[in-house]
């Protein structure tokens, strides 16, 4: 990304926040509809002692689940890329399970794995795993047949094809899956936290709503958004490095 794009992005954000601040003040909106950005920032700053541990917990859950899900997703996809018959049996099932909305599983995860970090990590790993798996498998199996023929003519076997051709050819798809998964990981963490936990930004938001403390709600949303943006940004930057040929 070049500097102009970044500058334009920052300019846009500043304009948006300025407009937000102005309209809240101008129309004298009540806090429960929309508090001003200045108020949100002030609340975030004064409440940092409580927000930081919550943010750390949320980030920990999201990142651990993400890492586990990514490894499992790519690993399983590689396995199935080698075994076409198994793929034909398993894939429809995977797609079916994947199309059920996340929130539906969350209460079960809490029931089975408790209200600690484990339930969130497992939920995230599950969602990220599916996303990455489906993208990776698509990339691994959609390789130019002529390129496969070429490598076979050099004497390449299945494993060699997987390592030398399929995996690098699938990197763009895998990277796309990983990029989409960053935001999903954050959403799932927050939602599962809201349903039951002792610490985390989702929990902070839920508590603040019960206490009708809307500035606190927005402060937690602000912190969660920052984490999410950073996460997305870092993964996108790595993607541009690794998939340099696209």
């Amino acid at each position, binding site marked *: 990304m070049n500097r102009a794009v970044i500058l334009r992005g920052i300019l846009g954000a500043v304009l948006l926040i300025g407009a937000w601040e102005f309209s809240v003040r101008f129309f004298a909106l009540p806090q429960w509809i929309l508090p001003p950005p200045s108020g949100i920032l002030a609340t975030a700053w004064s409440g940092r002692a409580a927000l930081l541990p919550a943010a750390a917990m949320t980030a920990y859950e999201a990142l651990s689940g993400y890492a586990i899900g990514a490894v499992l997703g790519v690993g399983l996809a590689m396995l199935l890329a080698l075994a076409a018959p198994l793929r034909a049996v398993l894939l429809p099932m995977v797609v079916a399970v994947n199309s059920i909305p996340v929130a539906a599983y969350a209460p079960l995860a809490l029931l089975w794995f408790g209200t600690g970090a484990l339930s969130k990590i497992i939920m995230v790993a599950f969602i990220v795993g599916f996303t990455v798996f489906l993208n990776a498998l698509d990339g691994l199996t959609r390789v*130019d047949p*002529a*390129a496969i*023929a*070429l*490598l*076979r*003519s*050099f*004497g*390449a076997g299945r494993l*060699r094809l997987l390592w*030398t*051709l399929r995996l*690098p*050819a699938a*990197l763009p798809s895998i990277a796309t899956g990983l990029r989409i998964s960053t935001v999903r990981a954050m959403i799932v963490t927050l939602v599962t936290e809201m349903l039951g936990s002792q610490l985390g930004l989702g929990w902070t938001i839920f508590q603040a709503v019960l206490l009708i403390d809307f500035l606190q709600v927005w402060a937690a949303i602000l912190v969660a958004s920052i984490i999410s943006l950073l996460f997305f940004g870092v993964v996108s930057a790595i993607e541009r490095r690794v998939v*340099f*040929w696209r």
Partner: protein
Amino acid sequence: MTATKLSISGVGKNFGAVRALDRVDLDIAPGEFVTLIGPSGCGKSTLFNMLAGLLEPDAGGTILLDGKPGKLLGRTAFMPQRDLLLPWRNVLDNALLPCEIEGLPRAETRARAEKMAVDFGLRGFEKHFPQQLSGGMRQRVALMRTFMFERDLMLLDEPFGALDALTRSMMQRWLLDIWARYRRTIIFITHDIDEAIFLADRVVVMSARPGRIKLDRRIELPRPRDAHLLTAPEFTAIKRELLDAVEEESLKSFSA
């Protein structure tokens, strides 16, 4: 009896109801440069796929390499119609692909590739990626990759098909030079009669689908050959003869 590098007899291929290749019989001597010409869809690439061991001939056909039957996969150096360079590998690593698959020692093959890159006009471009190369250069990388796979028999499927006329004639002379230096047996598919004659010891003309050998013409023109040959009377005479054969088949494949 002269030794035969490759002996093809009664080789045919059906794709479902489509008879792509009829019965092909062809013997090729070691070190020979044979060009294969014929209308589009007559089964040239199909024949190559069988010679490379990627496709089985229909029952009744036999392919003997060095007089022996058996698995062909990995025994011929095959260059497909598209260059198929891997975009995540630089020039040298693309050329090293077959050696890597064979499991040859890396340092040695690397040194060999670096030397070969000079012959292939790729010096200074070793670290470039395919996206950064011109069409002619990409084709040279693909050819070099084929040469790095050290097999006596090379199958080149329209290697210069996508190049402009100027680059193409330069590449032809260059290929003859390389061939003289590395001494391999080459079968070369082309759609260009000039190219077929200019390069070959023998031009083999195939019929419209289902492909058969229609004409097998030995080219006795002296070597080394240069661009002036294209306008020499003995060249034009051969060209007329081949043109008649090719034209007839092209018309057939058109009206079919």
